[in-house]
C-alpha cells in the first residue's frame, strides 16, 4: 500500500483513539472558535463550518458504562450508553455545544437528559428532522428549523454570505468519503481500516481530511493483490461507526465487505447547491437522502437499494448487522429479511453491542456464515 495511504490510516487511527485531544489541539490553533459535538446519523454540518467551527462526531468508546446507568435504561443501544458515559464523566467538557438529531426514542430521551444535567458545560440542542420527506412541507419546515438551529448554536445568525464556502467544504468532505470508498473497491483494504478512516472523517476538520484523502487518490498505484475473500453486503449500520477492531472480524472470517451503510446520514445525502438560499439548499439535499431506517416509511426503498448493491457487486450474501436495542433498525429488519429470504439470498442477522469485548462470538458467527457461503 502506498505511503499516502499509510499516512491517512495512521492519522485516522490516532485521531479516533482520542478525539477530544484533537479537539483541544484544534481549538488552540483556532482561538475563539467553537467545537460542536454531534450525534449520528445526520445533523447539518454546514452552519457549524459557516461560523468557523469544528463539528465533532460522538461515537463513544469501549469504556465500561457505570455513571450513565443512573440516567438511562440498560436496554438502550450501546452507542447512546457509551456517549452518555463519556458526557457525564466530563470527557466532552472541551465542547461548546452538542447537536442531537432526535431520530429515535433513545436519542430524544438522552438528549433531554444531557440538556437538564450538562447545560452548564455546553449547549445541548436538537435538530428536529422531518420524519417524512415525500411532501413539499418537509423542505419548508426543515429550512426554518435549520435557521433556528444555526442561530442557537452560533449565538447569532450567521450571514448567508458565509455559507457557500462552508457548503463547498462539506460537499468535499462527502466527496472524499465517497472517493475513498470507490478507491478501496479497487484496493481491497481491511474493513477494519475502512471503519477507522470513515470514523475520522467525523472528527478531523474537513479540510485536513480532504488533503489526506486526496493524496491517496492522486497517487497512481497498482491495485493490490486480489484478496480471495467472499464478497458480501452489510446493512443495519446507518447510525453507527463501530470500533475498527469489531470490524476486523469480517476480515478474519474471509469476508470482503463490498457495500455497507456505515454512517449513512452524511454519506447518503447528496451534494448541496452552493449558491442561493443556503438553508433551503441544505433542506433540499436532506430531502433527497438515501433511504434509512430512521424514517419508518422507507424499508421498500432500502430493500431495492440492497438488491442493487448485491447485484452490482456480485455479492454472495448479506449480513444484517443490527445494533442491539436499536428500534428503527429492528423495525425495518423484519421486512428486509422477509424479502431477502424470498429471493433465497443467503443472509445472517448479527446483533451487536460495543464495548463488551465480545468479538469471539461475532467472529464465530461470521466465520460460520463464510463457510456456508463458500460451500455454495
Amino acid at each position, binding site marked *: 500500500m502506498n505511503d499516502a495511504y499509510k499516512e491517512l490510516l495512521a492519522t485516522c487511527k490516532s485521531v479516533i483513539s482520542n478525539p477530544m485531544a484533537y479537539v483541544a489541539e484544534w481549538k488552540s490553533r483556532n482561538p475563539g472558535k467553537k467545537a460542536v459535538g454531534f450525534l449520528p446519523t445526520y445533523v447539518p454540518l454546514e452552519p457549524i463550518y459557516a461560523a468557523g467551527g469544528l463539528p465533532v462526531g460522538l461515537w463513544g468508546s469501549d469504556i465500561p458504562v457505570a455513571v450513565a446507568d443512573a440516567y438511562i435504561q440498560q436496554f438502550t443501544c450501546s452507542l447512546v450508553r457509551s456517549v452518555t458515559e463519556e458526557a457525564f464523566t466530563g470527557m466532552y467538557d472541551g465542547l461548546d455545544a452538542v447537536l442531537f438529531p432526535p431520530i429515535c426514542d433513545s436519542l430524544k430521551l438522552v438528549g433531554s437528559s444531557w440538556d437538564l444535567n450538562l447545560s452548564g458545560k455546553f449547549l445541548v440542542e436538537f435538530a428536529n428532522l422531518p420524519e417524512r420527506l415525500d411532501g413539499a412541507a418537509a423542505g419548508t419546515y426543515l429550512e426554518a428549523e435549520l435557521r433556528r438551529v444555526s442561530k442557537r448554536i452560533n449565538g447569532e445568525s450567521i450571514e448567508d454570505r458565509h455559507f457557500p464556502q462552508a457548503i463547498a467544504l462539506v460537499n468535499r468532505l462527502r466527496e472524499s468519503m465517497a472517493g475513498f470508498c470507490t478507491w478501496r473497491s479497487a484496493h481491497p483494504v481491511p474493513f477494519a481500516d475502512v471503519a477507522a478512516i470513515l470514523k475520522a472523517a467525523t472528527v478531523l476538520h474537513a479540510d485536513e481530511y480532504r488533503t489526506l484523502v486526496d493524496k491517496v487518490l492522486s497517487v497512481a498505484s497498482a491495485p493490490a493483490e486480489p484478496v480471495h475473500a467472499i464478497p458480501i453486503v452489510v446493512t443495519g449500520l446507518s447510525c453507527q461507526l463501530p470500533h475498527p477492531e469489531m470490524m476486523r472480524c469480517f476480515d478474519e472470517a474471509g469476508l470482503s465487505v463490498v457495500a455497507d451503510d456505515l454512517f449513512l446520514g452524511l454519506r447518503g445525502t447528496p451534494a448541496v447547491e452552493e449558491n442561493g438560499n443556503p438553508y433551503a439548499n441544505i433542506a433540499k439535499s436532506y430531502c433527497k437522502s438515501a433511504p434509512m431506517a430512521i424514517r419508518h416509511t422507507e424499508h421498500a426503498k432500502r430493500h431495492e437499494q440492497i438488491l442493487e448493491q448485491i447485484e452490482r457487486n456480485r455479492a454472495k450474501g448479506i449480513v444484517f448487522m443490527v445494533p442491539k436495542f436499536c428500534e428503527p433498525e429492528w423495525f425495518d429488519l423484519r421486512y428486509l429479511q422477509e424479502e431477502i429470504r424470498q429471493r433465497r439470498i443467503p443472509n*445472517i442477522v448479527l446483533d451487536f453491542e460495543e464495548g*463488551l469485548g*465480545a468479538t*469471539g*462470538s461475532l467472529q*464465530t*458467527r461470521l*466465520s*460460520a456464515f463464510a*463457510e*456456508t457461503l463458500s*460451500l*455454495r
Partner: protein
Amino acid sequence: MALEDAGVTLDSIAFKIATGYGRKRAEANRDVTEITCHAAGAVHLFPGTRTIIDIGGQDTKVIRVSPDGDVENFAMNDKCAAGTGRFLEVMARALEVDIDELGPLSLESDNPQKISSFCTVFGESEVVSHVAGGAAAADIARGIHESVAHRVSGLVKRVGVENELTMSGGVARNPGMRSALSAALSTPINFHENSQIMGALGAALIARTTHQRA
C-alpha cells in the same frame, strides 16, 4: 492422550482441522467453526437431520441444514449462561446433586417447580428458596430443565423448527434435558450416545473431504 487412546501418532494424521473457540490458536491445516462441524457430524449420524441443537457449556447453538446437509441458518444464544450447560451445572450445585444425576432425577418429577429462564443468578436463588420451601428435589430438577428448554426453544423458533431434530454436544446425554426439550418443541429429538463428539466427528469428516479434494 487422545492420540494414544486411538492408537495413532501425530505424523500419521494427513490433515488436521481445529474447531471450537480456541481454533485459531491450535496448530492445524485449517480451522472450521464448530457450527459447520456439528452440522456435518449430526447429518452423518442422522441423515434426515434438518435442525441441530447444540447445548454447550458456554453457549447454545441452533443450526438449520438443507436436505443436502449444508448449513442454511443458525442462531446462537447471547452472552449469558442461561440456557447453557453452565446453567445446569450451577443449578445442580445449588441443589447439591451431582450434575450427571440431575437429568435422571428430573424424570421422577410429577409436580415441576417454576424456575426463571432469563438469568442464572436469579435462577440459582430460586432453586435455593424452593429447597428451603421443602419442594421435592425431582420437581426442582424438572423445573431447571424446563427453564433451559424454554430458553432454547426460543432460539430454535428463531431459525424455525424443521424435522428431524438432532441434539449434539455433551448436554444431549442428559435424558432430562432431551425430555424437556422434546416436550417444549412437541417433537421427538434424535440422540446418539456419542453426542459429545459430534463436532469432532464433523471436523474429521470435513478434514477427510478436504484432503481427498487436494
